[in-house]
């Protein structure tokens, strides 16, 4: 009978490989500082929730360039750091989470979770100054957005 290398041994070698690698490069050089904003878009002048503040004017202008809503209000903002090889999960609201994995060289994979289920996964380079936005419809012709960007230093 052919001798087959046990899969467990291979897994162990592979895990050891990545563990050593990640230890050696974990010097902060591939850490990515990100900001995620949960935003609500509407054509109404005021938000339903009076506590919500308008999104920064520069970001609003950029959103208006490509999207049809007039006003954008910030629901939540999270600043976080993602280390290479260590995915980071961030809660944006009771129903919305994102998980970001940093592959280095400004490349990230983002998973968007709605009510605990993964809704969409996107791989993207995110250079300083650029925005990666996940969006969807909300009731009464409004929309929600999760706006990701590199944190300003």
């Amino acid at each position, binding site marked *: 009978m052919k001798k087959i290398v046990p899969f467990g041994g291979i897994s162990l070698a592979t895990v050891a490989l990545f563990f050593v690698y990640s230890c050696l490069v974990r010097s902060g050089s591939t850490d990515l500082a990100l900001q995620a904003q949960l935003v609500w878009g509407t054509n109404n002048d005021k938000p339903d929730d009076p506590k919500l503040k308008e999104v920064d004017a520069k970001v609003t202008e950029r959103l208006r360039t490509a999207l*049809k809503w007039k006003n954008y209000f910030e629901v939540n903002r999270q600043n976080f750091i993602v280390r290479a090889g260590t995915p980071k999960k961030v809660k944006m609201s009771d129903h919305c989470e994102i998980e970001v994995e940093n592959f280095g060289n400004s490349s990230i994979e983002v998973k968007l979770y709605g009510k605990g289920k993964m809704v969409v996964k996107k791989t993207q380079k995110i250079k300083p100054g650029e925005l990666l936005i996940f969006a969807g419809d909300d009731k009464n012709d409004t929309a929600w957005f999760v706006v990701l960007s590199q944190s300003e230093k």
Partner: protein
Amino acid sequence: MSRKLDYPSAADDALVKAAQKADMQAFEELVARHRDKIYARAVSMMRNEEEAADLSQEAWVKAWQRLKQFQGEASFVTWMTRIIINLCLDQLRKQKRLRAESIEQLDEELGGVERQMPVVTPNPTERMERGELRQRIDEALGKLSCEHRTVLILHEFEELEYKEIAKRMQCSIGTVMSRLFYARRKIAALLAGWKREELR
């Protein structure tokens, strides 16, 4: 030993069963039978023949891929129509994201315009030939915004209930009712307006 299927005379059910076992000839027969209806639905929703042709082709490919999921809970053509409607709705939403709405469309959405239209009596289409009437109705549909036209198509042509339309269009039942009301009144006003012009 099972007899080979006589495709042109086989019922849809038999063709679907055969297609579910990877009989592509059976599927081709289904396409030939129902392609006009699926295409027509796409044309009425998209108002663009090229787009409608592309979307209906995509619908058939999706149907082939999902055929095993079809359990016969509705007729095959109803199931196919659902696929093409969802594809059209997705496409319309894509287009909606990227275009600015005209002031006219916003007015329609906000409502109130239909209340200024006088009630139309008597029947403005009396003595109109069938072909001409269908053409006029199609023209009138073309003058509605895509939201109003979609609600009308789903209700009047696909006979969906308010609740089902609201689910498909991701809006409230109230919005469905208002849009349907506006759309019907607008169609009536257009048909009456054209009749008045002819009589001058």
